């Protein structure tokens, strides 16, 4: 493999891979936030559900 091919291949795969991985991580982080909301937020939503149920 010549140097030019090596450089371009590493750049495309390396940079592309880094972008895709971080994009995946951002999705996973958003999912974690949704699944495990902060205590106040979950308390508010539980309260809202409870209030709705009482009605």
């Amino acid at each position: 493999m010549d140097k030019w091919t090596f450089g371009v291949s590493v750049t495309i795969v390396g940079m592309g891979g880094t972008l895709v991985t971080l994009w995946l991580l951002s999705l996973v982080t958003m999912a974690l936030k949704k699944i495990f909301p902060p205590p106040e937020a979950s308390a508010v939503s539980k309260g809202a559900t409870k209030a709705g149920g009482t009605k």
Partner: protein
Amino acid sequence: MIQSILVALSSLGSGGIFLFTQGLPNLVMLIVGGVLLWLAVKKEVEPLLLVPIGFGCLLVNIPLGEMMDKGGILRFFYDVGIITEIFPLLIFVGIGAMTDFGPLFENPKILLLGAAGQFGIFLTLILALVLGFTELEAVSIGIIGACDGPTAIYVTTQYAPQLLGAVSVAAYSYMALVPIIQPPIMRLLTTEKERTIRMPMAQHGVSKTTRILFPIVVTMVTGLIAPKGLPLMGMIMLGNFLKESGVVARLSGASENEIANIVTLFLGLAIGGTMEGHAFLKAQTLAIFGLGFLAICLDTATGIMFGKLMCFLSGGKINPLIGAAGISAYPMAARVAQTQGQKYVKRNFLLMHAMAANTGGQIGSVMAAAMMLSILTGMGLV
């Protein structure tokens, strides 16, 4: 008797005689070591690193001291901590324990800026190849653009240990110079209107469970994608897990204080030990410094350009200045974005968003290195 006294006397001062007869490169490097110490002490430029590096540079350039020869103390530090790659990895545990990913949780999409800020690594790699460096040397030079000392040391130790001194000094020096290097590029690539975009302070909070799971998830995802980079990402996330778990305060404290401090001392001395004049003073070293500078400029530029893209896609809600913080120089790059933003709108608080991009840059730089390690292994080059 007199004869033996004369023989004994003749052995004294041999270092000085050598220095002024055959030791011109050593003399130059003694001056370089002095400059590094001056920068650290007088200007407070990365003193934690530059003091041991500068002193190591002095020690190794005093002729006939044999500090870096077999049995020498600097050689010992080098063999124990750098050849084995243990020092940079231990530093990573400390960095993980010091890092707060909180700002990133507020807007996880900003992680992408941390990826964009690594583009300079790859462009510099190509430039290094054009300049005639070998493939593995080019990878080690490109990684200066990670703006991340331990990552640069880890990769260079594996692929081009002969460049370790130049690469690590360049990486740490340019990290310290981020506040000088970045602002002109930020002004050049953004319009005044973009620089004045206000970003609201979002403080929704994050659950403890999310904080605890984050390092585990990052380790798993990145480890499965680029397993060869697992030592790097695994150690940084281990440090962060120690901190976020909240049950091992002593281990977390030791990682970010005692262990990090001790290892930094030995690491710096060992790097300084690689700066022996005859080996260090080459045209190649200057080229590495030039390419390293270019790498950081390119990282900044691509981070800002990606910030502009995100600004466009978000309908003008993202200030592109925070794109410059998508490098790993933490937290300096974030502070630069904040300072630049406030030059145009006094009450524009970009810091939290810039911190998010900056922590994204930390993950991005390690990921870029992990990608390179895995790709090179896959190509059969190592």
